[in-house]
């Protein structure tokens, strides 16, 4: 607004008068003309000297030609012409020099003009310096008055009164007063912002301190759980290592099982061959026994014949006896000696036939008894051999099935061996991973402890920060602000809920005070919460 006046005054005071800027304008032109004249003069002297040198050289070349009488006339004529031309050129240049006599006076004139211009310039500058000094004296007095007024306006600010405002006018301090007012406005905004920020910082620090304490507690629990997890991992590592050793032992047993299965298969092959041989022999024995039974039946048939003969002999004996009795009856009624002898012969024949029948009957009965025994034995042998052959066939079948089972056992043992070996390798790698994981858990535990310590330190720092915020708020409260000054801004910090222990519900393992058992006793952890 009113700040343009001093600038215009200053510009006017800085304008140059004509006695300054005109000599400054003409002096370079004069000096440039003086230099041009001096240069042209020197250049003309050089041309003249070069032309004379050229004419002397032509003359030196013409002289032998003129002295040589038997020479070519045309060449001598040409040389004379060239000398003539050189002389014409020299003549023309001397003519041009003679036509500009004023050039010889230009340089002194220009030098005098230059001196005059320098003197005029000195006079103009002295006049301008005097006028500027007079202007500066009046301006100083006005500025002093304006400064005193501005100081009067700024004095309440020293007491913290931010309601003060400086008067802005066209004096030198107008811009300063305007800047002061802007600064006071900015300071008022700054003080208000600072007070509000101090309060917000206080609240935020309080919330952060609460959160930090909860975080510190959580870090402690985390450290404890990490320690427990590390212990569990140690137990797990031991169990996995034991599992790996067991798997290795099982692999060796599986290998032995395969060897035993192979031996058993070879033994079963031999047993199968033996069983086949025994089966063949049993079949042969059965055929022989069948033949024996058939022979016994044939003997029985013959025995029946003998028995029939015995029966017939018995009947013959009886009939002989009857005839003998009848003969003796007839003898009793006669006296013939021959008939008596004949009766005696009948009786003896009857006795012999009876004895023969008795012997035949006894022999046939004994033979029949023996054949019955043999038949029974043969039948019993056949039944036993049938049972034996069936048992042998079953044994052969079972041997075949057992060979299949042994092959299955061999295959299964091989697959089991591979699986167990793979399991052992995996368990070993897993044990190594678990050991490294345990080491990582140890590092995490150390980091957790360090974090807890850092949180504790941060809590102390927050205490100090809150004290500083309160002190800042107290100091800002000493400033006096306008009554209806609106809040510059609202804090984006939301008050913390101060949650403490919410993380406890997210734990996978029930936090207990007792440490997990040592690496030897693998106690299963207690899975409890639903957060996992």
């Amino acid at each position, binding site marked *: 607004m009113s700040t343009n006046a001093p600038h215009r005054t200053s510009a006017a005071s800085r304008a140059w008068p004509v006695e300054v800027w005109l000599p400054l304008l003409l002096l370079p032109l004069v000096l440039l003309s003086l230099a041009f004249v001096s240069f042209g003069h020197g250049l003309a002297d050089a041309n003249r000297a070069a032309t004379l040198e050229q004419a002397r050289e032509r003359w030196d070349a013409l002289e032998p030609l003129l002295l040589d009488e038997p020479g070519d006339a045309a060449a001598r004529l040409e040389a004379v012409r060239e000398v003539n031309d050189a002389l014409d050129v020299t003549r023309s240049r001397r003519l041009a020099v003679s036509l500009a006599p004023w050039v010889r006076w230009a340089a002194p004139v220009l030098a005098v003009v230059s001196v005059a211009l320098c003197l005029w310039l000195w006079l103009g500058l002295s006049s301008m310096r005097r006028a500027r000094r007079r202007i500066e004296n009046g301006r100083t007095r006005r500025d002093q008055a304006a400064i005193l007024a501005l100081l009067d306006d700024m004095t309440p600010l020293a007491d913290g009164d931010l309601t003060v405002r400086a008067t802005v006018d066209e004096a030198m301090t107008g811009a300063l007063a305007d800047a002061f007012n802007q600064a006071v406005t900015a300071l008022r905004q700054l003080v208000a912002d600072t007070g509000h920020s101090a309060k917000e910082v206080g609240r935020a620090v309080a919330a952060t301190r609460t959160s930090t304490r909860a975080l510190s507690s959580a870090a402690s629990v985390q450290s404890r759980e990490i320690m427990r997890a590390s212990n569990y991992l140690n137990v797990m590592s031991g169990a996995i290592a034991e599992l790996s050793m067991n798997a290795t032992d099982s692999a060796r047993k599986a290998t032995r099982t395969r060897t035993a299965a192979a031996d058993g298969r070879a033994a079963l092959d031999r047993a199968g061959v033996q069983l086949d041989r025994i089966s063949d022999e049993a079949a042969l024995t059965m055929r022989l026994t069948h033949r024996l039974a058939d022979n016994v039946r044939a003997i029985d048939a013959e025995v029946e014949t003998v028995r029939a003969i015995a*029966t*017939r002999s*018995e*009947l013959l*004996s*009886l*009939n002989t*006896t*009857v005839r*003998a*009795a*009848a003969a003796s*009856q007839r003898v009793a009624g006669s006296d013939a000696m021959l008939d008596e002898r004949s009766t005696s012969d009948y009786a003896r024949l*009857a006795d012999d036939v*009876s004895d023969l029948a008795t012997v035949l009957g006894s022999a046939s009965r004994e033979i029949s008894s023996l054949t019955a025994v043999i038949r029974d034995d043969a039948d019993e042998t056949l039944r036993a051999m049938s049972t034996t052959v069936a048992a042998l066939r079953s044994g052969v079948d079972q041997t075949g099935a057992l060979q299949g089972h042994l092959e299955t056992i061999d295959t299964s043992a091989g697959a089991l061996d591979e699986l167990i070996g793979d399991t052992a390798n995996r368990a070993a790698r897993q044990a190594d991973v678990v050991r490294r994981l345990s080491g990582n858990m140890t590092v995490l535990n150390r980091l957790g402890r360090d974090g807890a310590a850092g949180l504790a330190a941060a809590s102390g720092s927050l205490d100090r920060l809150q004290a500083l915020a309160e002190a800042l708020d107290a100091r800002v409260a000493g400033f006096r602000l306008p009554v209806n000054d609106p809040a510059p801004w609202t804090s984006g910090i939301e008050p913390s809920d101060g949650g403490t222990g919410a993380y406890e519900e997210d734990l996978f393992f029930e936090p207990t005070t007792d440490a997990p058992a040592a690496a030897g006793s693998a106690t299963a952890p207690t899975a409890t919460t639903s957060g996992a």
Partner: protein
Amino acid sequence: MSESASAPVTATAFVPRRWVVMHAAGQDIAIDALSVREIHDGWQAMPLPGTAAWFLGTLVVRGRVVPVTSFDAWLDPEGGRRAPPFGVEVTVGGDAYLLAVSDVRHAMDASPDREADRDAEPAARSPAPAGSPGALAGRGVRVERRTIGGLEMDTFTAGALIAAPAFGDVTASR
């Protein structure tokens, strides 16, 4: 002469008699061998209708028709019709009869010493034969008890058998 004649008689005082022992109706019955003409087996009688169950029919033996009686069924009518395998041909006055029995053998009388032993020691005698003792007498045949071949059994003669009324009536009503 009479003494000389009586001397051999005294020397041959005991001449053992020959008997044909038949097994019928579960008991041994002996008949004098003099009454027997021949023992048969493998015979096949021709049955006659309207006759008793124990009468098996007739059989032609050496051109003569001989009646065949199942001695087992005759002695034990309750046992029904039976055809035993052996046939004992007996003759009485020129007539022949065939008695079918289960078994037949020959034997001789016991010595008088044995008879004395039997009379002195009744307990030492052989047990009574199986079947129904006295069945032959019950059919009206006169019998004698004798010890034959060490066994005590009923003996009879062909005449006594033919004289029994039950033997001659072969009708079915009886």
